[in-house]
């Protein structure tokens, strides 16, 4: 028997079984570990253990220049890397007081919303797979491949796109973006619609997701939840509406809010958010086409970035919630301290309260619906 140092789980007291849902497990998203104490099939205590994907991103940030840190932000939330890139670049721009030109903001918005759609596709698909519904995964992931094609033709990488630069974007939208987007749009809508028809009013899906790990709004706010998990609990909070950044205050879109905070609400919110993202991309692309072709894509930024001494915090609404960067600069070309506020960090620490009293199969559904991405959690 491996003698682990004392974890915060009581020794099995006769009736309870201690179960290890280990870091390498097909239903755990990435390298997550949960030590569960069960009474039969019901969870008595669930202790998450993280740190299996800790790469010392914050320590690396202290030894790399501001530009060199952008690829590292890709690898945090690898399902929607562009959102992390844009969040970091906006934080450095706030630190330096740089104003990003409008065309660059529109390109960033279009790409970030595509990344949001891609992230939600992952969640809905994998939630289905974890509960046994394989088909929506295939329908949705074909569209995700098309989104990857758009990314690849823009800047060369499918998953870990080092998108954007401090002050703007590095290249304009590719000339065949129009054609790809026109091809993708109806197929994406059809895939979302088919998934909706397959799952939302499906008896088995509703039985497995309604009421599972319901969470109240006060608990969610106490735990620091943000993003779709908080909106599922009934709190209408979206940084794109409450603290608008880029050009979100010019776009017309809705923010879906759930009621019970259970798995079904989290799934429905993401389905609606995908449709709203499509709406935003349409509006942004229309504005983009009205811009003159020689509008600047990047603000005037010195080659070696040496921000003034000081510290700022900047948060954006990533697909998972509030992704924030706190950067302190000491006047040199390397940051003094970068602190990343990952959205799923605050959500995962409430895991015990989320699954206590549920069955082990519901625990898997809950983990899947929270969209815990280990890269972002551990950094």
């Amino acid at each position, binding site marked *: 028997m491996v003698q682990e140092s004392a974890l915060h789980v009581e020794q099995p007291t006769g009736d309870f079984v201690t179960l290890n849902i280990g870091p390498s497990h097909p239903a755990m998203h990435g390298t997550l570990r949960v030590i569960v104490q069960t009474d039969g099939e019901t969870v008595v205590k669930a202790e998450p253990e993280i740190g299996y994907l800790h790469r010392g991103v914050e320590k690396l940030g202290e030894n790399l220049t501001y530009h060199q840190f952008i690829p590292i932000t890709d690898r945090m939330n690898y399902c929607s890397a562009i959102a992390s890139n844009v969040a970091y670049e906006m934080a450095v721009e706030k*630190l330096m007081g740089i104003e990003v030109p409008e065309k660059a903001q529109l390109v960033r918005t279009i790409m970030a919303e595509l990344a949001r759609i891609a992230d939600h596709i992952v969640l809905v698909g994998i939630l289905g797979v974890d509960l046994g519904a394989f088909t929506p995964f295939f329908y949705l992931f074909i569209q995700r491949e098309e989104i990857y094609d758009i990314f690849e033709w823009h800047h060369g990488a499918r998953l870990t796109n080092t998108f954007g630069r401090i002050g703007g974007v590095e290249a304009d939208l590719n000339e065949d973006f129009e054609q790809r987007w026109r091809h993708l749009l109806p197929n994406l809508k059809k895939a979302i619609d088919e998934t909706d028809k397959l799952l939302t009013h499906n008896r088995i899906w509703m039985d497995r997701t309604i009421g599972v790990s319901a969470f109240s709004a006060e608990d969610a706010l106490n735990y*620091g939840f943000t993003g779709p998990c908080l909106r599922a609990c009934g*709190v209408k909070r979206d940084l794109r509406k409450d603290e608008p950044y880029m050009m979100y205050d010019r776009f017309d879109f809705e923010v879906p809010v759930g009621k019970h905070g259970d798995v079904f609400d989290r799934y429905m919110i993401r389905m609606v958010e995908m449709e709203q993202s499509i709406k935003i991309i349409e509006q942004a692309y229309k504005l983009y086409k009205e811009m003159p072709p020689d509008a600047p894509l990047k603000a005037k930024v010195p080659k070696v970035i040496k921000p003034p001494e000081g510290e700022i915090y900047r948060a954006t609404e990533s697909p998972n919630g509030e992704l924030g960067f706190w950067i302190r600069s000491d006047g040199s070309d390397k940051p003094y301290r970068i602190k990343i506020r990952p959205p799923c960090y605050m959500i995962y620490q409430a895991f015990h309260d989320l699954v206590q009293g549920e069955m082990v199969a519901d625990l898997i559904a809950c983990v899947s619906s929270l969209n815990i991405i280990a890269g972002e959690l551990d950094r």
Partner: protein
Amino acid sequence: MDLKKRVEECLGSLVVAVNQWQGDVSVEVPRKKVLDALALLKNDSELQLDFLSDLFGVDNLAYYQKKAKSKKKGEDEAAQAAAEEAPRPPRFEVIYLLLSLRSNERLQVKIRVPEDDPEVDSAVSLWKAATWPEREAYDMYGIRFKGHPNLKRLLMWDEFPAHPLRKDYPLEGQGEERHLVYD
């Protein structure tokens, strides 16, 4: 609402310094009174800073070393030695990022934590959102939080001997390995 003025009114004598830069307001409070200050900010009827966004530590060692070194140019030996012997400000800082859900205002609250007595009252009694960030601050810096229900290492393994995000810990690590004991 002028956030800086309102925070100064709310905290009164607990304010050590208040700063506003690039749109961010930050206030420093004494270490021993941090829970009082946070509770005042949370319960204030106008500010309502009732959401804890983040909590983390900062190590100022390299900053003070750089400042001491930059004074060396153009000073003689005695002044250099005096500058190195001079008492430095406390090494660590703990920073709380608060948010008001009603007015969408953000505030940074910071406290300074000395190296020889790195103890801070835990904010878990006010917000459960502080549970893991405090564990991480302990893991990465060695700052202990009094009253935390489960102060163990979070990202590194439990018997890891050092505190990695400190400035005197090298980027490449010190070659620690994890040995599991099988009995």
